[in-house]
């Protein structure tokens, strides 16, 4: 019997993994396991064959090549898709996987796999040491929110723990709407129990009994997998009234978004969970004190909560040793857009953007020179090729007028029109603004118009001054990051690619 792993991750499926799995399943002496993706997406569908030397990779595999591949495997012969042991591939060796330790390795819905690979240890230890010490471990680790704002998780948890209340909530923000980010999705599909464990630890730490995960509707596979994982966790006593027989009660509900980017903003997500329009709330009060249905609420991103089990299992000090300055631990970077080797890459903070894009990413997929890289989603700055030596660190990025955000890195080659990208930033804001505050709702529409006038040659100097003024106003006057950060991509494009904004004549 030969065991082969074929990912069930939706990116792998988009490249034909289901067809490949079906082709293997036609052979009676082959056992097919559907794992998550290792995150080397240019190799998908990446098939792994279990051998005496570990799991050996082949990819990208197409269904028609499955019979010859099986012949080669059985004969011990070489094959042109042969990659060698997957754990020894340079992309894998260069990483330090904490959040994604099991993603791609295990069957995501197997509780046995989960426990055999270190799962549930963190929760057991949290229960042993008690809520206060659990919060202290997270504070000690230096873990900061991975959703983008980078707020220290321990401080947030302590606030919720210290706020009195009969009913408290833990909410996981899985509304991963930033273009160029997909790590939350890969974790939801590839290691859902890790997130369930992280949320349960959070609930224990702050005294919450109910949890909600808000998954965006654009991720139907993640919703299906996560719902199944929750059912299995209940059946396994990892959720419910008496978790692990230790008297802890925590109920977890899965909610699905409805196509609004703004619901990734935490207060807007809470409104949406309450069944309302996803309109941003003014802060204060902060959600830690007055959150979901007015109750004290932990709101954390998927990757923040998925880092927690390991922090508890190994201790906060071990986690704090990783990373640089005030950016501790690991970050899951996502290489996307026009990149040769795209995928997820988890490593300690401090690695340079150039190392990620050029060395690990292999430059552009088109083979043309890199011109710009957008880090941190649609509200992140564009960084020119000359700026790629920037280290991946919250503060270093802030100093450079950029932001790390959720770790998405979108690469563009030299054919990109940066005036068009700046215009798109406003267009996107206009489309996705919740409409509550005027700078964002109206400013975004005016931004599109002003850029059109500039590129159309209509009084460019005066309109450029107007554009700068508009950017100031949106930055200072918007209620949340949507309007407040939209000027980031616009201003960075103006600063580094001013030539693209020179008036042009219609070519048609």
């Amino acid at each position, binding site marked *: 019997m030969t065991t082969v792993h074929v990912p069930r991750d*939706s*990116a792998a*499926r*988009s*490249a034909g993994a289901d067809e490949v799995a079906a082709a293997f399943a036609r052979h009676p002496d082959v056992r097919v396991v559907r794992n998550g993706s290792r995150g080397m*997406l*240019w190799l*998908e569908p990446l098939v792994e064959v279990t051998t005496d030397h570990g799991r050996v990779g082949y990819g990208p595999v197409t269904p028609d090549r499955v019979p010859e591949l099986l012949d080669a495997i059985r004969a011990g012969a070489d094959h042109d898709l042969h990659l060698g042991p997957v754990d020894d591939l340079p992309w894998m060796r260069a990483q330090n996987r904490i959040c994604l330790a099991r993603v791609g390795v295990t069957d995501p819905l197997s509780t046995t796999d989960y426990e055999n690979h270190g799962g549930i240890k963190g929760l057991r230890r949290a229960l042993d040491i008690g809520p206060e010490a659990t919060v202290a471990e997270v504070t000690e680790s230096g873990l900061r929110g991975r959703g983008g704002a980078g707020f220290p998780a321990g401080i947030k948890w302590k606030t919720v723990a210290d706020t009195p209340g009969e009913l408290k909530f833990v909410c996981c923000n899985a509304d*991963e*709407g*930033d*273009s*160029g*980010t*997909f790590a939350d999705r890969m974790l939801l599909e590839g290691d859902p129990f890790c997130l369930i464990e992280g949320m349960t630890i959070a609930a224990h730490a702050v005294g919450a009994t109910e949890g909600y995960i808000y998954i965006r*509707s*654009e*991720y*139907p*596979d993640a919703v299906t997998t996560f719902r199944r994982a929750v059912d299995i966790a209940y059946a396994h006593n990892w959720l419910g009234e008496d978790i692990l027989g230790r008297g802890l009660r925590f109920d977890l*509900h899965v*909610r*699905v*978004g*409805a*196509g*609004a*980017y703004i619901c990734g903003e935490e207060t807007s997500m809470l409104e*949406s*969970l*309450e*069944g*309302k*329009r*996803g*309109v941003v709330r003014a802060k204060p009060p902060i959600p830690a004190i007055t959150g979901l*249905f007015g109750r004290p609420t932990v709101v954390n991103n998927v990757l923040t909560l998925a880092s927690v089990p390991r922090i508890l299992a190994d201790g906060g000090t071990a986690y704090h040793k990783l990373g640089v300055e005030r950016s501790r631990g690991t970050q899951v970077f*996502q*290489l*996307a*857009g*026009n*990149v040769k080797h*795209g*995928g997820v890459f988890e490593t300690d903070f401090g690695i340079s953007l150039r190392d990620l894009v050029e060395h690990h990413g292999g430059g552009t*997929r*088109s083979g043309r020179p890199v011109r710009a890289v*957008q880090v941190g989603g*649609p509200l992140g700055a564009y960084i020119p090729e000359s700026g790629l030596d920037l280290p991946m660190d919250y503060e270093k990025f802030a100093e450079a007028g950029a932001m790390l955000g959720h770790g*998405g890195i*979108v*690469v*563009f*080659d030299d054919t*990109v029109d940066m005036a068009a*990208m700046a215009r*798109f930033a406003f267009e*996107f804001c206009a*489309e*996705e603004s919740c409409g509550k505050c005027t700078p964002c709702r109206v400013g975004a529409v005016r931004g599109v118009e002003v850029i059109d006038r500039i590129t159309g040659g209509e009084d460019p100097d005066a309109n450029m001054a107007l554009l700068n003024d508009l950017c100031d106003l949106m930055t200072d006057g918007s209620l949340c990051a949507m309007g407040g950060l939209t000027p980031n991509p616009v201003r960075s494009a103006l600063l580094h690619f001013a030539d693209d904004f020179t008036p042009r004549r219609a070519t048609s």
Partner: protein
Amino acid sequence: MDVADRVLAVIEAHRHDRGALLPILHGLQAEFGYIDQSVIPLLAKELNLSRADVHGVVTFYRDFRSEPPGRVTVLLCRAEACQAVGAEELVAHAERTIAKIGQTAGNVTLDQVFCLGNCALGPAAQINGRLHGRLTPHELDAAIADQTREESS
């Protein structure tokens, strides 16, 4: 079952959920394919909300359609990562050959989306819930044709 009973069955399934309106709207869209204006008064009455509140929620979220879609729904990603690898060319092709974004022609509804989480394998599209990657115009046509055949059989 008549329409009102089917609506009530969906409401009943979520009556005890906190903030039940979104799960109910998803349930209704799964049942009927869209949210008909006529269900709004019933939802308002059953959930003790104003009709304006319900209307506000239905219209705030892009997912909730006011008209039935075609048998095949194509969502083309237009976010930055897909733009970096030719999403706009794909959109132009689809608008030329199928319908304008947001419209239905025959069996096919074409719409846009900002990010499907397939950013390393763009340009991406979701066709009846199934994710596709690295799409050329030709492959998009083939994938839509496959889905159309599947839905008709």
